[in-house]
Every structure is written in structure tokens, then in C-alpha cells.
């Protein structure tokens, strides 16, 4: 399968392991991602909170580049990039006069904007049967809390998943043999881009999310966004220093849990670079699926 790939800035930096694990997993699933040539930042939170046109134009440049490259479908593994690209696509399509203005600003024509998938939708497209078919290890001891965060399924109607009770990520995770838990905070905000300027807020909100997952029996959290990962994994250091009774819990990217089921080890997937050590038994205590 061919697909256009918009990595987004985090995949080259703070979320390198997300990119690494994703590429390994896609190879096994016979997907050949084509990077958008010379892609640039979507503008993220900082653009849309300060200038509507800047935000539209930065996303539109990438959509125009993808179109020029002949890509009919693209996927963005970062939930924030996905949301920005899709929001811009919708606005450009709904407001022709705005589209004309943005085309002038970016000096590119936009005609057929590609289909845009987030990582969960994209794995749905690949199919859970395909994942199950390539599975080498059954992760039956895993009790995963699937965390959607804010931007994967919002605003409502953005994709086929429900914006209050989504279930698409659970369906993918279950294909690894892992159990998924029911919990209350799968859509609660972690504080997102306030991580640096208002760390106090992010520490409070992330703690509530992590506590709820633990309370409902999870032994790991699965995320599909570099910002969510950074707040839920790295900020556990800061949570621990503020709340001495806090119990830590590992946080995996969706591509990492899939990678474990496909037989990769922690290092191959970059899981060793997380702040919270991942030490759930994978190979030794867990039954291998017979070939």
C-alpha cells in the first residue's frame, strides 16, 4: 500500500521513537510511506492562537505540496498536525474566497486536497486483520488505557469516530491480544502546549489522567500524539516531585505496542528512550503465537 506521509516536526525530535517504531511497523504491514517533499511545520497551536491566516497558510503549503506530488491520501501521526491539516482543508473547501487569498499567500494552487488520516484511522484502513495476521506475540498481559487526547476525534464529525465515546483505538490495540480498559479520562486534555509556559497546569491535568487509568486497572497507556506522550511520560518526573504518593505508569505510542506484537524489541522501537521505564513482560512470560 502507498500512502503520503506528513511526519510533523516532533517526529524528528522529541518523538523520534514514534517515527522509528512507525516505520518498522509499516514495513511489516506492507505499507510504503512517501514523505511529502520539503514539508514544513503546520503551525501547531502557536499559529492558530495568534493568526488565523498564518495557521491556514502554513497548513495549506503542505497540502499543496502533497497534491503537487500526486498524493491522493496522506496520514499525519501527530494528532495536532492531523487536526490542523484537516481543519485547514475544510476551511479552504468551504470558503472559496479564503482559498483564493491563501493560494496567493503561499504562491501555490490548490485543487484536489488529499484525503487526510490520523494514525488510528490509518491503521483501521490497513485493517486489524492484517495486524492480527502478522502478529508474532500475543500481548495478553497488557491492560491498555487508550488515550485519545483532544484532537484525534474532535470536533465532532471530524471523522467516523464518536467524539464522546470513541472506540477505534481500542479496536486496533485489541488486535495485539492486549486487553483494553474502560475509563473516564480518555478524552480529557493534558494541557497540551502549555507544557512549558504553565507546567503547573499540565502537571495537575496529566496526573488526573494517569491516576484514572491506574484506578481502572491499566498497566500501560497508549497514545497517538507526541504532545500527549511528552506530557504523560516526561511530566511524570514533575508529578512525582509534587505528589509523593504518585504511582508511575508506562506510556507507549500506538506504533510501539503494535511493534511489540509484531516481534520487535524495546530498543528497535525506541521504547528505551522514554522517561518512564517500560518493563511489562513481553517475550518471557507471554505465550508466543505459533506460526
Amino acid at each position, binding site marked *: 500500500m502507498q500512502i503520503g506521509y506528513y511526519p510533523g*516536526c*516532533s517526529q*524528528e*525530535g*522529541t*518523538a*523520534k521513537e514514534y517515527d522509528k517504531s512507525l516505520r518498522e511497523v509499516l514495513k511489516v504491514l506492507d505499507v510504503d510511506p512517501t514523505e511529502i517533499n*520539503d*514539508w*514544513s*511545520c503546520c*503551525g*501547531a*497551536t*502557536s*499559529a*492558530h*492562537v*495568534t*493568526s*488565523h*491566516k*498564518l495557521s491556514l*497558510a*502554513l497548513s495549506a*503549503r503542505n497540502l499543496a505540496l502533497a497534491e503537487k506530488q500526486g498524493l491522493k491520501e496522506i496520514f499525519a501521526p501527530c494528532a495536532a498536525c492531523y*487536526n490542523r491539516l484537516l481543519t485547514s482543508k475544510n476551511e479552504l473547501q468551504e*470558503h472559496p474566497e479564503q482559498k483564493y487569498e491563501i493560494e496567493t*499567500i*503561499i*504562491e501555490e494552487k490548490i485543487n484536489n486536497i488529499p484525503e487526510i488520516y490520523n494514525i488510528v484511522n490509518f491503521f483501521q484502513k490497513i485493517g486489524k486483520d492484517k495486524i492480527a495476521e502478522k502478529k508474532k506475540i500475543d500481548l495478553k498481559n497488557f491492560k491498555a488505557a487508550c488515550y485519545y487526547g*483532544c*484532537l484525534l476525534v*474532535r*470536533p*465532532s464529525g471530524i471523522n467516523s469516530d464518536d*467524539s*464522546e465515546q470513541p472506540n477505534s483505538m481500542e479496536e486496533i490495540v485489541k488486535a495485539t491480544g492486549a486487553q483494553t480498559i474502560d475509563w473516564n479520562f480518555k*478524552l*480529557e*486534555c493534558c*494541557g*497540551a*502546549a*502549555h507544557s*512549558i*509556559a*504553565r*507546567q503547573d*497546569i499540565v502537571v495537575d*491535568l496529566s496526573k488526573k489522567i494517569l491516576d484514572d487509568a491506574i484506578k481502572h486497572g491499566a498497566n500501560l497507556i497508549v497514545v497517538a500524539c507526541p504532545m500527549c506522550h511528552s506530557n504523560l511520560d*516526561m511530566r511524570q*518526573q514533575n508529578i512525582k516531585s509534587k505528589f509523593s504518593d504518585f504511582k508511575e505508569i508506562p506510556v507507549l505510542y500506538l506504533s510501539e505496542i503494535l511493534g511489540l506484537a509484531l516481534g520487535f524489541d524495546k530498543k528497535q522501537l525506541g521504547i528505551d*528512550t522514554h*522517561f518512564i521505564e517500560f518493563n511489562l513482560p513481553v517475550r518471557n512470560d507471554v505465550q508466543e503465537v505459533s506460526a
Partner: protein
Amino acid sequence: MSHHNTTHVRTISDDITDITSQNPELCYQCGKCSAGCPMRNYMDDAPNVIVRYIQLGLFEKAMNSATIWLCAGCLTCSSRCPKNFDLAKFMDAVREVALRNGVKVKEKTILKFHKAFLKQIKNHGRSYEVGLVRDYKMATFDLFSDVENSPKMLLDGKLNIFPHNVKGKDKIKSIFEKTEVKKCK
């Protein structure tokens, strides 16, 4: 009719509507947005109150609030609004208009973060964390907080020492020059 010559005086509300393409009068103040807002605890005015300010023409009150800067853009409100009013987009517009009007921003560190982030994009086309943290710390004079996680990230290769410059760097710069909002305090 005697009123047909009356000219409408443009207000901040019109500027907001230009950005959002939605009428603020849509909101009937049910408060569902504020009830589900994860940031409400940290805000001064509740999110629905910001809409009310604009409806009543109390533009300064809206633009001076900490609320507009604390909104994390999580879209919970926009998803739940019974009138399909996109409040997150409205908050974006109030911030933008506040910046254009040179309003004194209440949550200074948050704006400094956004400026430091955008500076990297303007110069390189992609995010550059080392530059972001450097510029943010210079702007806030807060050099030593929140640095305990950096050594591990450097070792793991997650903080690139040098920026990646996209080939279309000049185009990105020109996009910024045509669209960024400069006037602000």
C-alpha cells in the same frame, strides 16, 4: 424608510466574525462549554462569559481576560455546543484581535512561548526545540527551571543541536511576513 442611510460602524465583533465566519449571537449562554472546560479552574472568566462580553460590546473585558490565553484549544466546547458554535475558533479570533489592538496580555509567559515557537518556524520552516527553549528562556529571564529533563533527551538524540532548514525557507518567511500579527505588548 428614514433609516436607510445609517452606516454600520465596524466593531471588534465584526473583526472576530471575519475570522470565524460565525455570528456570536448564535450563543444562547447555556454554559455547557464552561461546564466541560478542562481549563476553567485556571481561568478568570468562564468561556461562555467571553462570548457574552462580545455580545454586549464589552470588547476590552474579553480581550483583557486571562481566559483567552489559557484556552488550550482542546475543542471540547466546540464538540458539545448545542448551537454548533465553534467556541475554540472564537477564542482564537479574540486572541488575534487582542494582539492586533495591542492589548496588554495577561498570561505573558504563554504568549512568549508562542512567539518563541513561531520564531523557529519563521527562520527554519520546522520546529527547533533548542532554539525554542533558548528564546523562551531569554524572553522570560527564567534560565534554570525545567531543565532537569534535557540531559536525557540530548543523550537520546531527541534534542537536535542544529536546526533543520527546509528548502522552501524563504517561502515560509514570506508567508509569515504576509500573515503574522505584529502589534502586541
